[in-house]
């Protein structure tokens, strides 16, 4: 049998990422994940969504799939934008930012990877899919 899946199509509008986090919250409760796990999912989801909103240059919508598996929650955040090469993204360090000219931003990917149990990026010039997993 297929795993139960919640799918969300979100228009690119301010703070729409909160629709995704509220959805994740209820799914996390349903799966009896802890408050901490739920918070980590929230934060990772916010970051993937705002990346898709801000950087992908996708025209209209992004797509989020929540796949409820026996022992994990798998979340896919999909945009149909320009894609990017993750290996070219610098790893941020606060020491290089405070008191330096470096742009203060650039934390999203770092956070996503720190907060989830596994994260995969598939990106081409027709879009990006971020697949992140939180184990029970």
């Amino acid at each position, binding site marked *: 049998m297929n795993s139960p899946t919640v799918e969300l199509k979100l228009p690119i509008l*301010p*703070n729409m*990422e*909160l629709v995704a*986090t509220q959805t994740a919250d209820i799914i996390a409760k349903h799966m009896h994940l802890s*408050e*901490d796990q739920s*918070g*980590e999912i*929230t*934060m990772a989801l*916010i*970051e993937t969504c*705002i990346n898709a909103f801000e950087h992908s240059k996708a025209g209209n919508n992004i797509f989020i799939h929540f796949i409820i598996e026996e022992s994990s929650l798998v979340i896919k955040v999909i945009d149909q934008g320009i894609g990017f090469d993750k290996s070219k993204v610098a790893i*941020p*360090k*606060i*020491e290089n*930012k*405070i*008191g330096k000219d470096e742009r*203060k*931003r650039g*934390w*999203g990917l*770092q*956070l996503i990877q*720190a*907060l989830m149990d596994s994260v995969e990026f598939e990106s081409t010039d027709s879009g990006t899919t971020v697949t992140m997993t939180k184990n029970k």
Partner: protein
Amino acid sequence: MSDFKTKVTAVNEIVIIETEGYLNNEGGQMVYDICIDKMASGSRKFLLNLSGTKVVNSIGVSIIIEVIEKLQEVEGKLGYYNMAPIVEKTFHIMGLSKYSSLYKTEELALLEF
């Protein structure tokens, strides 16, 4: 939709900014503006009471990094208390805990500040 709100008070020379709502781009900017304004009139010590902020994004927190930077220039300091666990974890991952202080409660914050 974000409904970010702030309430500013002062204890001794410490400016306390109580926040409510999603600390995103706009929320971070609101905190930044308050700090810059108060710094212009001489304040150097700032505490954020984050009890009403259950969720942040990295854009908002990056603006807090800018506040830290501005405060370093004038030998001021920034602290936080009443953080939700995920907010605290985010500040740790981003390394803000190296340049500003995290406290459990207002009492502890005021004691050390």
